[in-house]
């Protein structure tokens, strides 16, 4: 599978996530679009890890572990995303408890 396909799919998912962050007003939807962006990057990392593995296989080494750090980095990204979601949702729940809204435009006006 040419690596181009994975690059463009990942770019498209990432840009859809960015449009979501810029366009929506609900803080939870914005958070979910950030998770979408993270997943786009994960997909690209796994595709590149298989590309490097294929290159190393073609260079002759049959028991290479050439691309495994890409997949392990994806594992750590999932770890960090899980921790970040728990703290982020705690912040959103606390915010809702104080002002009974999760509208980011409302929060924007609080600075005045």
């Amino acid at each position: 599978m040419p690596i181009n396909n994975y690059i463009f799919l990942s770019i498209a998912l990432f840009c859809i996530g960015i449009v979501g962050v810029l366009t929506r007003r609900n803080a939870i939807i914005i958070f979910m679009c950030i998770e979408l962006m993270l997943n786009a990057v994960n997909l690209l990392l796994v595709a590149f890890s298989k590309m490097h593995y294929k290159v190393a296989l073609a260079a002759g080494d049959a028991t290479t572990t050439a691309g495994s750090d890409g997949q392990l980095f994806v594992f750590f990204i999932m770890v960090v995303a899980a921790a970040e979601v728990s703290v982020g949702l705690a912040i959103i729940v606390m915010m809702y408890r104080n002002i009974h809204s999760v509208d980011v435009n409302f929060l924007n006006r609080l600075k005045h």
Partner: protein
Amino acid sequence: MNVTLILFWFLSVLALFSALMVVTSKNPVHSVLWLIAAFFAISGHYILLNAQFLAIVNIIVYAGAIMVLFLFVIMLMNLNKSVEPQKNKWLRLAGAVAGGCLLLVLVAALKDSEVTQKSALVNTGDIGLIKNLGKELFSTYVVPFEISSILFLSAMVGAVVIGKKE
């Protein structure tokens, strides 16, 4: 047009369509469900690349735990019943144009790079198996692995402290 290519296109279209529906759904619960569908499509891509461990972990952690947490919070705040006020039409158009410009710039920058000659190995490959990943994780990357446990501890403590009622 072999099965691999058909599967790739089917999963890609499913992922892109689900992502678009996440961004454009009015009801937050529908957005969460479309995002779960997107995660399943991306896990399908991982299985296609024979990254089996990551496919299962993606389903269990992302679709199974993180999205359920999102659903809890949405249900707790009764957001499934309320209608979210929308941004100004011009602001939404500006957001879509900004995202589209970024898409164009990235695609234009990357379409002629020399890496496009290479390809990713699908269907086979041993590095995605849990045995080989586990060997790498516990030999070369054992320090980040242990530090991630401290990260989880701090996230748990932080979430409890932030959420406490005073």
